[in-house]
């Protein structure tokens, strides 16, 4: 993958700069370059830099830079280029200016090319303009077994709606990190029900840890709270023979309840 260029990594999604109809600095530069009426490969970058800076000055963007981060970096870039045309050559670090020069020329060339291609594409014959589909609609779309009309974008929007509403952070591999108390209570209930033998606390934690993949310490904490909850309701009994010895659980049979 191409690394983002320096100036670009600072661009936030909402920073979508359109100044006087120019979509971003590259767009403006390309227009300025075209006004030089030269081959993009032989760009007069010095002149271009001057034009760009003048443009910013004339349009008052000097003081609205927070509004145009992209432009600021581009301006800095071009100022560097221009300064290199002024500095005596022997003081220049070799290649530096040359490289920026080339890079900019290449990027402008690429944008110009894409623009040409976009124009070519939209000048092509188009469906329902120059050629037409079947209207034998008796069986329209019958090939797709169902005639549900929904697109992936609709499904994604549904999801965005949910996560926006709940500020729900999503990752594709959602794995629970916590054992919620209600789940712990449920689990203990299921596990203890019908089991006549004593169950040790540590075994219970181990079981739940393996089943859920949730961190063992977190499981232990939730389960302990769950046990207290159950004990309070009189559903289970816990006993511990010595300090730090294992904690044993037993279900309280119905007869003993109350």
């Amino acid at each position, binding site marked *: 993958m191409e690394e983002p260029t320096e100036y670009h990594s600072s661009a936030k*999604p909402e920073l979508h700069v359109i100044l006087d109809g120019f979509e971003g600095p590259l767009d403006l530069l390309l227009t300025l370059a075209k006004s030089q009426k030269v081959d993009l490969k032989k760009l007069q970058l010095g002149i271009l830099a001057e034009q760009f800076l003048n443009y910013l000055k004339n349009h008052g963007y000097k003081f609205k830079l927070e509004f145009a981060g992209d432009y600021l970096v581009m301006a800095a870039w071009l100022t560097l280029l221009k300064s290199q045309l002024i500095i005596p050559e022997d003081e220049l670090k070799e290649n530096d200016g040359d490289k920026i020069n080339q890079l900019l020329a290449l990027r402008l060339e690429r944008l110009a090319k894409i623009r040409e291609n976009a124009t070519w594409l939209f000048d092509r014959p188009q469906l329902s303009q120059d050629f*037409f*589909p*079947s*209207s*034998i*609609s*008796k*069986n329209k*779309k*019958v090939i*797709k*077994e*169902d*005639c*549900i*009309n*929904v*697109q*992936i*974008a*609709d*499904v*994604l*929007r*549904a*999801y*965005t*709606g*949910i*996560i*926006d*509403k*709940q500020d*729900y*952070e*999503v*990752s*594709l591999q*959602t794995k629970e990190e916590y054992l919620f108390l209600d*789940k712990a209570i*449920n*689990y203990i*209930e*299921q*596990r203890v029900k019908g089991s006549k033998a004593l169950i040790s606390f540590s075994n219970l934690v181990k079981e739940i840890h393996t*089943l*859920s993949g949730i961190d063992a310490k977190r499981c232990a904490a939730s389960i302990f709270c769950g046990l207290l909850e159950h004990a309070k309701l009189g559903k289970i009994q816990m006993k511990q023979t010595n300090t730090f010895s294992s904690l044993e659980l037993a279900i309280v049979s119905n007869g003993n309840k109350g």
Partner: protein
Amino acid sequence: MKLSLNEQNAERVIEALLFTSSEAISIKELKKNLPTNIDIESVIEKLQKHYETRGINLKRVGKSIVLRTAKDLDHLFVKKKVKKKSLSRAARETLAIIAYHQPVTKLEIEEIRGVSVGSGTIDVLMDLEWIKFGRRKLSPGRPVTFLTTDIFLDYFDLSSTKDLPGGKELRELGLSVRKLNQD
């Protein structure tokens, strides 16, 4: 018999007109699109002959003609007819949650949506064969989980649900909820 250049073109015109029309077209109407010196009857006759052995037949209905699929191929079109409708918002949300969180239980879907999931919603998605049952979850009550199917991937032209954008990406792409609120 060989057709004249004019007749050949008349054939093409009639073909294209019939193809783009869901209803029969009257011969009078067809004539409007053809040079006056064309013997339309003989062109139609030849077209009819041409299509006789093909998957589509040219039929005369009164003073009109129409293209129809050959009778013996009717079996191609008897697939279950579902009315063309859009998926309810509940179904879209449920589908999206299953796609992103699979394997996921009904309870978990409800937790994420914040509202309960009607059985009709699951049924619709099941009927479409876009979702299926996964393994039971190793959690209390061992509830069933849901997964999306290959038919789902196929329908939406995806190679894997992992290729769907995540939450942050979704926001960046601007596939926002705005449009959903219209329904």
